[in-house]
């Protein structure tokens, strides 16, 4: 059975369809990656339109609280096996938005990220490098973020809920301004 899994993994690594979630900056790096100059289709990677069809979720740039909600929903609509690529510094530690009140700091706390691409902005070479690394990981059976998500679902859900479903003010020591109506 393990041979069969290896075969399946080999082909999965050769055919990865990508859904790019580009509400932050960095989307502009993808057209050159797709077209003549760098041509990611030679690795079997093509852009797809909906989460149902996609294997890779590529998240570029910062994620506001609002967009995080959509990312989680989109990620859960994708079907296993699925992988997440975090693109740019903002997905690693918030980047230049490190102290912003509405940009999350680290994507990995909310959904499992298989590979980060560091940089602000990462060049298309870096994206391709990530794709190749991901391919190797998939073929070796190492990219198991989606299983991690299932196993640690409560932990991820708690993190998501802490950000998305707040029921009390975050900063308690500062008194609320009196509203006059």
């Amino acid at each position, binding site marked *: 059975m393990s041979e069969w899994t290896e075969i399946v993994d080999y082909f999965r690594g050769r055919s990865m369809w990508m859904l790019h979630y580009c509400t932050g900056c960095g989307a502009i790096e993808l057209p050159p990656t797709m077209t003549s100059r760098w041509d990611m289709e030679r690795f079997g990677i093509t852009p797809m339109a909906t989460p149902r069809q996609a294997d890779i979720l590529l998240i570029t740039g910062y994620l506001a609280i609002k967009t995080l*909600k959509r990312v989680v929903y989109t990620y859960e609509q994708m079907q296993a096996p699925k992988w997440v690529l975090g693109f740019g510094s903002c997905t690693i530690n*918030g980047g230049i938005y490190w102290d912003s009140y509405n940009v999350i700091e680290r994507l990995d706390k909310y959904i499992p990220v298989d590979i*980060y691409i560091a940089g602000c902005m990462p060049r298309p070479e870096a994206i391709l490098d990530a794709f190749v690394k991901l391919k190797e990981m998939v073929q070796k059976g190492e990219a198991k973020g989606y299983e991690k998500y299932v196993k640690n679902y409560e932990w991820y859900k708690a993190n998501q809920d802490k950000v998305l479903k707040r029921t009390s003010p*975050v*900063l308690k020591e500062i008194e609320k301004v*009196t509203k006059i109506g």
Partner: protein
Amino acid sequence: MADILDEIKSMDLKASWLGDWEFEVFTPKDRLVSTLSYLKAKGFKAFMGLSCVDWIEEGNFELVYILQSYDLALETIVKTKIPRQRPVIESMGPLWKLCEVYEREMHEFFGIEFTGNPNLKPFFLENWLDIPPLRKDFDTLAFSEELFEFKEDETHGIESPKRIE
């Protein structure tokens, strides 16, 4: 052109040129409606935007209304100050319907009440329970550290994903 500024000054308002095509008018809070109506009647029919500045040391919010006149080719910036402790002002909805949208935003980010605006629901922020975030006394770094829990060395008990070195 210069007449307008003189007329405004004659109404006991502070006004000054900012450039060839732009002037600013300072108006007390209670004369805001009359000033804006006057300017609209004078040809500043286009409402360009509403903004707000938090003068925390003074204890005031400064509301900034930007109007333009296509006939006179002029822009005017009308500024008025309201106290931080009691940020209430009339809605300019009757003058410009568009203004209500900006007021909704100002309400959300500074907590200013616009009396007469029926639509002061949350706009951009979802599920916001803290003080309005663009006030100067809102500590955005503390908020970020508290909510997003960013620490360099966290492991959270599960294997951390591989990174590109």
